[in-house]
C-alpha cells in the first residue's frame, strides 16, 4: 500500500457543556491522503482547524464521523474507531508526532526524553541514548543541557528536544505541528534537512508550517483547510 494515511469524510465539533451546551463546529467533510515519501502541508488561517486535524490523527481528539485509515504493520486500522490499546500501539510503531510544545516530565533528562520512543520500541537504552545524543548534537543543543530536565530550557531549546524526540524513530507517518516556529535560521535549516531525509526514507509527513520560506521548501502539496471549515461564512 503506497498510501499509508487516508482521511475520509471526517467531521469534528465540540460541545461546550459549561457554556450551555453550545455546539462549536470545527471541520467537516475532511478528505485527503498522504503518500509515502510525501510532505503535505496543512494551510489556512489560524482557527481553521489545522491543529485539530493533527490531533485527530494522533488520537488526542475524537472524531464525530468519518474514517482515518492508517497502514499499521500489515493491517489497515481505522483510528476513528480504534480502541485505546490499538491507538497506543499505532503511536508506538506507526504515527510519530512533534507537538507545538514539549510536555516536560519532572526529573527526566533531555536525552532520556528523546531516547524514550526508541527505547519503547525495544532498542537497548544505551543505543537509544547514543542516537538521541546524535540528534541533539545535530540540532545544536548545547551538550551541557543534555542531562538536564528541559523544564527550565528556552522555548527554542525545548522545541529542539521535541523535534529530536519526534524524529528519532522510523515511524512511517510523522505529524509536525509548527516544528520550526521558535527556531533560529540555522536550526531551521537543520530541521528542513531532517524532513528531507525522512522523505527520502519514504515517510509520509503531514505538517503545519506558518513560516512561508520553510513551507515552500518542504511542501510537496498544500491543503487549504479553510475548505473543510464547518463554520458558515457570516
Amino acid at each position, binding site marked *: 500500500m503506497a498510501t499509508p494515511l487516508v482521511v475520509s469524510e471526517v467531521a469534528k465539533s465540540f460541545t*461546550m457543556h459549561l457554556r450551555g451546551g453550545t455546539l462549536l463546529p470545527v471541520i467537516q467533510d475532511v478528505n485527503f491522503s498522504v503518500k509515502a515519501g510525501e510532505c503535505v502541508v496543512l494551510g489556512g488561517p489560524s482557527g481553521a482547524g489545522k491543529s485539530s486535524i493533527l490531533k485527530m490523527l494522533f*488520537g*488526542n481528539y*475524537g472524531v464525530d464521523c468519518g474514517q482515518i485509515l492508517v497502514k499499521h504493520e500489515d493491517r489497515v486500522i481505522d483510528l476513528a474507531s480504534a480502541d*485505546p*490499546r490499538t491507538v497506543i500501539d499505532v503511536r508506538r510503531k506507526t504515527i510519530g508526532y512533534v507537538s507545538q510544545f514539549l510536555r516536560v*516530565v519532572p*526529573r*527526566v533528562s533531555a536525552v532520556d526524553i528523546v531516547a524514550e520512543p526508541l527505547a519503547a520500541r525495544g532498542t537497548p537504552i544505551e543505543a537509544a541514548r547514543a542516537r538521541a545524543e546524535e540528534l541533539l548534537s545535530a540540532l545544536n543543543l548545547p551538550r551541557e543541557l543534555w542531562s538536564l530536565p528541559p523544564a527550565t530550557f528556552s522555548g527554542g531549546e525545548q522545541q529542539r528536544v521535541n523535534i529530536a524526540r519526534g524524529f528519532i524513530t522510523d515511524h512511517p507517518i510523522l505529524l509536525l505541528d509548527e516544528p520550526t516556529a521558535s527556531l533560529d535560521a540555522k536550526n531551521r535549516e537543520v530541521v528542513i534537512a531532517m524532513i528531507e531525509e525522512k522523505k527520502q526514507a519514504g515517510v509520509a509527513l503531514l505538517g503545519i508550517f506558518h513560516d512561508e520560506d520553510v513551507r515552500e521548501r518542504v511542501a510537496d502539496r498544500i491543503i487549504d483547510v479553510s475548505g473543510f471549515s464547518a463554520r458558515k461564512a457570516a
Partner: protein
Amino acid sequence: MSEQPLLKVHELSKFYGARIGCRDVSFDLWPGEVLAIVGESGSGKTTLLNCLSTRLTADVGSVEYLMRDGQYRNLATMPEAERRFLMRTDWGFVHQNPADGLRMTVSAGANVGERLMAVGERHYGRIRETAGDWLGRVEIGLDRMDDQPRAFSGGMRQRLQIARNLVTSPRLVFMDEPTGGLDVSVQARLLDLIRGLVQDLGLAVIVVTHDLAVARLLSHRMMVMKNGLVIEQGLTDRVLDDPREPYTQLLVSSILQV
C-alpha cells in the same frame, strides 16, 4: 497484540444499603497497561478499587484474573487462602497512607524481605541482598535499611511501600492516591519513580487519583467516575484534551495553571 487481558471486569456493582458505591462497571485490563480511575471524593473510585482487589465483596458482577498458568479464575469464588497468596505475591497494593501498607515497627529491610518470604525465599543472605537492591531502586540509602519506617519521612515511607510491593515481581498493582498528601517536589520524585518502574517492569496498574496531572503522567487509559458510575472513558490524552461529558469538562477546566 495477541495476548489476553489480565483482568476482566463484568458489570461490577456495590451498594451500601440503598446508596450506590459503584454500578455496572465493565472493562478489560491488559498486561502492562496503566488505568487511572479519576473523579471527586465520593464518586466511587475507591469502592471500585477495593472491589477489584477483593478487599470489598461486590454485590453484583464478576472479576476474572488471568493466573500465571494461563487460566482465568473468578476472584469472588476463589478460596480465601489462595486469594491471600495472590495478594501477597502476584499483586501489589499501594495505599495512600504508607502506614496502612507497611509494618511500622520492623526495619525497612524486613518490610521488603517479608514479602519475599511469602513466595518461599528462606535464605537470609539472599533476602537481605534483594531487599537492599530494592531499597536502592526506590532511592533509599542502604544505611537506612535497619531503621524502622517510623523514622522515615512521608515520601520515604511511600517509596518503601512501593519497594515492598514490587519485590515479588507482581503483574498487577493497585494504587490508591499514591501521591496524595505529599508536597509537590516529593510528589514529582515519586511519580518519576513509579513511571520508570512501571515501564521497566511492564506492570499493569490500576491507580485511583483525583489529580488529573498524575493521571496524565502515569496512565494510558482513564475512567471518569461520578455518583458510582463510569461516565466517560478512553485514552488518557483523548479524555483530557477532548472531554465529552459535562462533568469531565468541568473537571478538566478546573485544573489550575501554574
